[in-house]
């Protein structure tokens, strides 16, 4: 049922945008952005459920929570960067969209730095000096 709701909302928004685009392109952009946000809101509850299950799984298996937190952070950054970049790209600003994506990639890399440093440290200790 929710799937039908979301598809219906998407179709409605698309038709509206097609109609309105010739006269008022700014409204078309606004409709596209708000539709995206509404669909995302639909999904937030579900994503929360998935994350809860993952957390329980990690807790029961004894995986350190810091791993899970890192992974979830990565996915959040990826989602938000994608979302913003696509909206901006829809508005025709390809260069800004690519900058947003770059920012997302850099932030993900920043999260990787402590892990990389620990691995490299261990490897250096393993090798004879």
């Amino acid at each position: 049922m929710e799937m039908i709701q979301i598809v219906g909302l998407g179709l409605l928004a698309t038709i509206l945008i097609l109609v309105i685009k010739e006269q008022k392109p700014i409204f078309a952009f606004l409709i596209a952005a708000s539709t995206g946000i509404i669909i995302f809101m639909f999904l937030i509850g579900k994503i929360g459920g998935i994350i809860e299950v993952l957390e329980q799984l990690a807790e029961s298996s004894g995986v350190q929570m810091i791993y899970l937190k890192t992974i979830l952070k990565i996915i959040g950054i990826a989602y938000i960067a994608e979302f913003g970049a696509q909206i901006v790209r829809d508005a025709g600003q390809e260069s800004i969209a690519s900058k947003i994506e770059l920012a997302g990639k850099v932030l993900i890399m920043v999260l990787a730095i402590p892990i990389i440093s620990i691995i490299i440290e261990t490897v250096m200790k393993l090798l004879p000096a």
Partner: protein
Amino acid sequence: MTWISEWLKEIIFVVLIAVFIELLLPNRSMERYVRFVVSLLILLTILSPIIRLFSGDTEQKLATALADNINGLEGYSTNESTALILKQGEELKKKQEVESLQWAGEEAARQMKEQIQREIGQPIERVAVKLVTKSTDEGKTQGNFGSKQTELLISSVEVFIGQSMTVQDPKSSKEGISGSEITIQSVEEVTINVDLQQDVPMIKDKGEKGDKTAMVSTEDTPLIDDETSVLTQGKDEATVERIRELLYKEWGVSKETITVMKRENQEN
């Protein structure tokens, strides 16, 4: 052997979570980066026994490094840790308070015992003193942490008098205590209760010799007085009165709340 199963479990779950997360990803352009970081995490998990072998505190280091990142973005975990530290401090303080109360109670009991022995000339089996702290009103109006003004109160004093209230000379009474002579031992208990507020937590002080069975604590003062008058002879009452007088004089325990109990039972 358990560490192998732990390790395998960890690897399996990290891989599972990684696959799951990859399914959740929005689209292709981010996927390479996410995959890179996730694969690093899996590598770290696989290497974790070796890492633990070489440097013990790696997990802590990783946690702090990542927490720094988190702080840069959100900034909640410092508050959490500060609250934790404050809580630990509060617990430590409470523990210390309890310990010092116990110590003070023991010390007071020891001194009381000596005084009573000196005054009355009869062996005292033990003296138990209960101390409580009463937080004064200004402590409540002041802040939550630290600076709470407390006042020490003696809530009850129990004096257990050894054998032979009726025996006249002190020599035989000493023998009775040492148990070399076959006498019927009577234990007399003097319980002194100071009225208290209900909300004050009671800290019970164990007596020096830890005689739990002999402890009788009651709230009902006049009833016990009657019992005393029934059970004690005149001489005993005089002694008890002297003890009361002494405690009142030396320790400021008010006499109306002093309860004298006497139980005549045979001890082996």
